Each structure stands twice: as C-alpha cells, then as structure tokens.
C-alpha cells in the first residue's frame, strides 16, 4: 500500500504541520513515510504545499507528479493540483473562498467546511486539524489514536495542553466532511 | 686570557633561546621580524609553556615562522589566522594560542576575521607586525601604508583621494568589548625591545585569565621594501611611522572592582 498525498494552501494555514503530523502518525503505525515541502521565502500568505507519502514499502521518489489524494485549501492550489489527482483518486477541499469548484468526474471529490467550523469552535488555529480529521475519515490509513501520538511527537512539550482541543477538531472534521 | 676562560656560565650575558630553531632566519638583515620572533619565544621559555603553546603563521613574510619557532604551529590561508586560533583555543582552552600576522594579512584580506575574533572576545593573542608595506610580494601598498608613502602599487606615493586612507586597525579593535589588552610597541632600540617584551609577557599572563583577546601591534620596518638601509629605515620609521602610529598602551585592563 502506498498513498501519495499533496496538501496545498496558503502559507500560515498549517499546511506543513498538518503534513508533519500525518507523517508522524504513519510512523506510529509502522509505515514508511516521507514529507517533502515546497520551501522558500513565502512563509505567510504565499502558497505552500507538501507531499506526504505513506507506504508499507520503501518509498522510492519523495517527489511525484500525480497523487492518490489532494487536500486543497485555496483557489490557486485547486487550479494547480486538480488535474494531478490520479483517476479514481481523491480530492478534499475547503470551499471557503473557492469560486471555481472542481469539475473532474473521474475522481472522488469531498468538501469540508473547515474554515467556517474552526470559527464556530472559536479557534482558527485548529483549522488544519479539522481538515486532517476529514482526510482520515475518507482514507482511514492511520487511526485517530496514532494521529494523537503523532501530534504528541511533533508538538513541543509546552504545547501539549492543546492536544485535547486538537483531538476535538479531528473528530469534528470526521463528522463534517461530505461528498460534494 | 684563553677563550675557554671566557666561555663560562657566569660570564653569559646573552644566549639564543632554545625555542628558536637552528634554521637561519629568512628575513632581510635589519628586519624587525627576527627580534619579534625572539622575544615571543623568550617569553614562552621563561613561562615554561612550550608544551602548551600553539602558534599560527600567516601569509606574508612570516609565512615560514613555523620554521623558526620550536613550538607546534599551523600555517593559515591568507588572512584567516584568527579563525584557526578561534577553533584551537575553544577546543583546547587550557593552551596558549597566538597568531602572528602582518598588515596585509590582518588588516586587508583578514579584516573581517580580525574584527570578529576581537569582538567575540576570543582568549588568544594576536601579534600584528605593521611595516606599512607588502614585503614578501615585493613592496606593494598595504592597508597601513602612510599617505604619500611610495610602494610599487602607489609609485608616486599613496594618494588618499585615490587609494583611500591607511587603516589604524589597532585603535579600531581597542573599541571592541572583546579586547582585553591592546598596545602598540616597536623593536628598533634596546629600550623598545625591553618594553615590547614586557608587553608580550603581559599578553601571555592575561591570556590565563580568559577575559578576552590581547592584541599587540609592533610598528616595524621594511628596509628592502622601503628601499633603504637598515639604519635609514629605522630613522624613517621613527620620523614617519611613529607620529601616525604612536607607541604605547591603547587599552589596559582595569583593576578589578573590589
């Protein structure tokens, strides 16, 4: 089993850290993982993306040009990556701010109102965890427990008090993700 | 009286320190380098720290200093002696470490390394020999060449409008919080040699305190580069170099507040 994922959005949305937590979850589940970020000066507001690969075998290329799953968090990323999803693959996106919605018929498209839900929950910072919850609902390759373990590994100890809130966000994401 | 009657320990008034090797010095007759080498080695002998001292040779006339000094030494790329010394002293903090550098090495190509080592307050000693000219490469202009002074790359004299001003780097590093002891000396007279040797001793003693960098400039001559004989060169140095680079302490340690 190999799952090749692209997560793309604006810098500052937590794209890279979501990928990191997912990768750590994979390790907790005894998988091989790779996390390859786009890197550069666009720390906030620019586009950011990361390729995460989870596999039961040794991972060959950490860089691929088509994906099993695309997690899309803004319009430029949707425009760029919709066509890179493999036929039969999965696209999950937050419709917030999207004016040109995905149109492909040969892939499974899901939407998750994570921006709105994060605002409802009173903490915009948990936005990315809501999205992650949506992803693991659709693609249950890693368990919620292992995601929490991954979260513990990737968060510095001084932030561990935030874990319950993040867990709640993941659960909420699993509830609200829906077929487009 | 036979010669054997004269060669007796009680008659000894001068001996070459065994910390200078038997290798004949490669410096021009009349050059200050030999005397400066000697007083540094004498101090190391007197303090009995040969086994604890590591020197760094530069690029310039004293590139082969390691041939004459009987201590462990490294030879650095041009201008980088203080970078080497930084690493050695940090890895071997109980050793005495010094660099021996000329004006081109220390105050032109190595300016960044010099200033940053001084500013970090590295606990080693810099011996800086300033003769206002590039001796080894044949008498080109140095960062310390005086205004109006001739060199092969300023054959009509240093025109500061074109070539810029000489750099008083010793005054400059004295401003930095990391330097502990900064002084300017010369070795052209017996009295000056005595004073300079005292300064060298001070630097090694201060080095034990780990309170920062000790920096000694020796204003020196270059009779070959200046195209003079040795006597003329020393006279020219007194009349021209000393007014611009006045001898004496620039920064001395303040007595500890009780």
């Amino acid at each position, binding site marked *: 089993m190999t799952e090749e994922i692209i997560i793309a959005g604006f810098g500052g949305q937590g794209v890279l850290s979501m990928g990191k937590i997912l990768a750590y979850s994979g390790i907790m589940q005894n998988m091989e993982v790779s996390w390859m970020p786009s890197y550069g000066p666009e720390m906030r507001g620019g586009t950011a993306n990361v390729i995460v690969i989870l596999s039961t075998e040794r991972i060959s*290329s950490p860089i691929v040009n088509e994906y099993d799953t695309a997690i899309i968090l803004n319009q430029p990323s949707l425009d760029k990556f919709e066509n890179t999803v493999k036929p039969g693959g999965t696209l999950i996106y937050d419709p917030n701010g999207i004016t040109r919605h995905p149109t492909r018929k040969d892939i499974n498209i899901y939407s998750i109102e994570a921006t709105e839900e994060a605002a409802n929950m009173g903490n915009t910072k948990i936005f990315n965890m809501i999205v992650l919850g949506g992803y693991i609902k659709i693609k249950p390759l890693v368990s919620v427990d292992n995601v929490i373990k991954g979260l513990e590994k990737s968060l510095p100890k001084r932030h561990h008090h935030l874990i319950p809130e993040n867990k709640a966000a993941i659960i909420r994401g699993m509830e609200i993700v829906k077929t487009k | 009286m036979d010669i054997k009657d004269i060669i007796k320990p009680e008659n000894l008034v001068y001996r070459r320190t065994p910390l200078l090797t038997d290798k004949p010095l490669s410096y021009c007759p009349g050059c200050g380098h030999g005397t400066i080498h000697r007083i540094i080695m004498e101090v190391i002998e007197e303090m009995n720290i040969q086994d604890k001292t590591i020197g760094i040779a530069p690029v310039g006339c004293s590139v082969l200093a390691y041939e004459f000094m009987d201590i462990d030494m490294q030879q650095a790329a041009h201008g980088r002696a203080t970078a080497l010394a930084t690493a050695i002293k940090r890895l071997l903090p109980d050793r005495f470490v010094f660099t021996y550098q000329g004006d081109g090495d220390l105050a032109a190509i190595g300016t960044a390394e010099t200033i940053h080592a001084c500013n970090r307050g590295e606990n080693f000693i810099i011996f800086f020999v300033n003769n206002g000219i590039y001796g080894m490469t044949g008498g080109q202009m140095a960062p310390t060449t005086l205004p109006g002074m001739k060199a092969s790359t300023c054959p009509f004299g240093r025109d500061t409008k074109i070539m810029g001003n000489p750099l008083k780097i010793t005054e400059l590093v004295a401003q930095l919080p990391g330097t502990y002891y900064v002084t300017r000396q010369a070795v052209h007279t017996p009295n000056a040699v005595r004073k300079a040797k005292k300064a060298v001793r001070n630097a090694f003693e201060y080095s034990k305190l780990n309170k920062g960098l000790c920096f000694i400039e020796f204003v020196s001559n270059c009779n070959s580069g200046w195209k003079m004989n040795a006597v003329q060169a020393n006279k020219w140095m007194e009349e021209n170099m000393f007014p611009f680079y006045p001898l004496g302490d620039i920064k001395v340690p303040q007595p500890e507040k009780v």
Partner: protein
Amino acid sequence: MGELRLMKGNEAFAEACIRAGVDAYFGYPITPQSEVIEYLMAAKPYETTGMVVLQAESEIASINMCYGAAGAGFLPATSSSSPGISLKMEGISYMAGAELPLIILNVVRGGPGLGDIQPAQSDYFQATKGGGHGDYRLYVLAPSSVQEMSDFVLIAKEIAFKYRNPVMILSDGVIGQMMEKVELFDPIPRRTIEEVEKQCPWATTGKKPNRQRNIITSLDLDPYRQEKHVLKLYEKYKRMEQEDVRYEEIQVSDAEYLLVAYGSSARICQKTVDLARVEGIKLGLLRAITLFPFPGKRIAELAKQVKGILAVEMSTGQLVEDVKLSVNCSVPVYHFGRTGGVIHTPTEVLDAVKNLLMK
C-alpha cells in the same frame, strides 16, 4: 533498534554529528541548510559532549576554523549550500593539502551565482574534481535519504581519518528539506585529549619534550618536495578507488537499459524503474553512493549487459561525463535532467528512457 524520529535531512545530519562524536561544528546560515546550525544551537551539545558549535562571521571564517580544529587533531564539521561552498573552497583546498580530516555537507541549490534556493545537482564537478585550486580530490558521498544523511556521518568520520582527507556529503535541497523516518545510531563519546593525541600524533596540541614540534601547513616552496607530496595524495585517491567505492544496484540483474543517478535523482529514478517494469521495459538503476571514487568499474561491467545508459541528474550534464569515461564508448550514453532548481519527475525520466535510450 535505535531511536526512531521524523526528521529533516539537515536535522538528521546535525544530530548525527553530535552522536558521532564530532568535535566541532562551524557554520554560516544559507538556505536550504540553515536547519543544521539551528538544530545544533538548540541542542546545545557544548553543554553535554563538549562539542564546540559556533556561528562564524562567514563561510570563509567557518572553513578556516575547521582547519584550525582539524590541525589540532579534532574532527570538525561544516555545512553550507552551493554559493557558500564556493567560498569555502579555498579552505578545503588548504585542508586537502595539509591532509586534515573534515566533514563538509553541501545542500546543493540551483546556480550559477546566487541562483535560487531550490534543489539542484549542479555542483557535481566542483565536488568530485577537487573544487578548489590544486591537484586533490575529496571523498564524496551522495545520500539519497534522510536516513543516509545520518548514517553517512559515520562513514565520513571513518574515511576522514583513514585517509586524513576532507569528506564531502553532497546532498541537495530535496534530501536536506524533506522529512523521513530516521533510526538514529547510539551516541559515540568524543575522544579525550589523550585519545586525540594518540590517534593524531601529528596534531598541534602543544609540543611535548619527547617529540619534535608538529607543523600543519600546505606550503612547500621546493617544487620537488611539493611534487612528492602531491603524488602521495594521489596514492591516497588511488587507494580510495580500490577500497572504498560505494554504490547500490536496483533491478539490474536482467536490465536491458540502465539508469545511473545519485542522491535525490536516484530516488526519482527508482520510481521510474517501477513504472518502466509495469510497462515491461527491463530498466535498472545503478545509484552511485560515492561520486569520488566513482563506481566506474562496475558501470563498465554493466555496459556489456545493457543496450544503453541514461545518466539522470539535476544539471545539464556533469555526472554523465564520468559515466562516458567509464564505459569508453562501448554503449551509447545519454543524459537527462532538469536544472536550475527544477526537479524532474519519474514520468519525465521514463519519457527520456523511451525517447533517448530506446529509440
């Protein structure tokens, strides 16, 4: 099993330096490798192992700090990315001349000049042909995973002392920036000063009465002695070719076509091999792990078996020259690769296999 962590390549290198008992790290920030010094400064090994870590005023100062440390018998490490490595090259040449151990990491980015900060493999010539002035070589290791960014520090340490020669780990922005699972090796204590003096009797640790003074220099004004010295260095490089060539073969036993690649490009090529095999194309990969000494002998053997070779690298063609020299025109050798910070994809490489190799 050692400790498992998810780390960036740059972080794995830094952690491995601490665990390998490297004595000092001197560096200067430059993208995409600044995580190395950031990690070390956060880890504060100077409080635990006594390893010295210092952010120097420049790449030039940092490499010369390495020279001083190595000359005193210690094992220094430094890291940079392409433009910074060019600045270090003078010091690297001095260290090769003075026969000093060193671990140097180059996280290559697009060039020439300031170029960009995206991954590239365009410093191959610089790394494998000396890089600085004079007749010398570096031992060059090319990691293709985060695990190897850690493991190769141990190989580099061994080789640096075995040959008294600088070792370069030639990485790139992909390997430096990506995170993978790493199994960390158990820490090895740093040598005591007595052990340093025993292992490196040539080091400038202070002249003891029972020995001659030690001098670390790359200077010898007598050309006949200098020639002798250079020939001695050359003998070391010959020995490296006999004893320390490293490479990995992937699906070559029945291969009709061969890819030769290193580093992140080799990872991409692994995927290409998988894609090709699905289509029934008998494609194999030789991954060069040492770029100097180059696994040319093995490539020459494989040239007898395959119909053609494609060198795949993120440059306009540097590795390909060594491949061509190795096979000596016995089979066609082609080059494919994106450059300037653009990374080729596995399918682009497969297209090149079809359009160049199989035409």
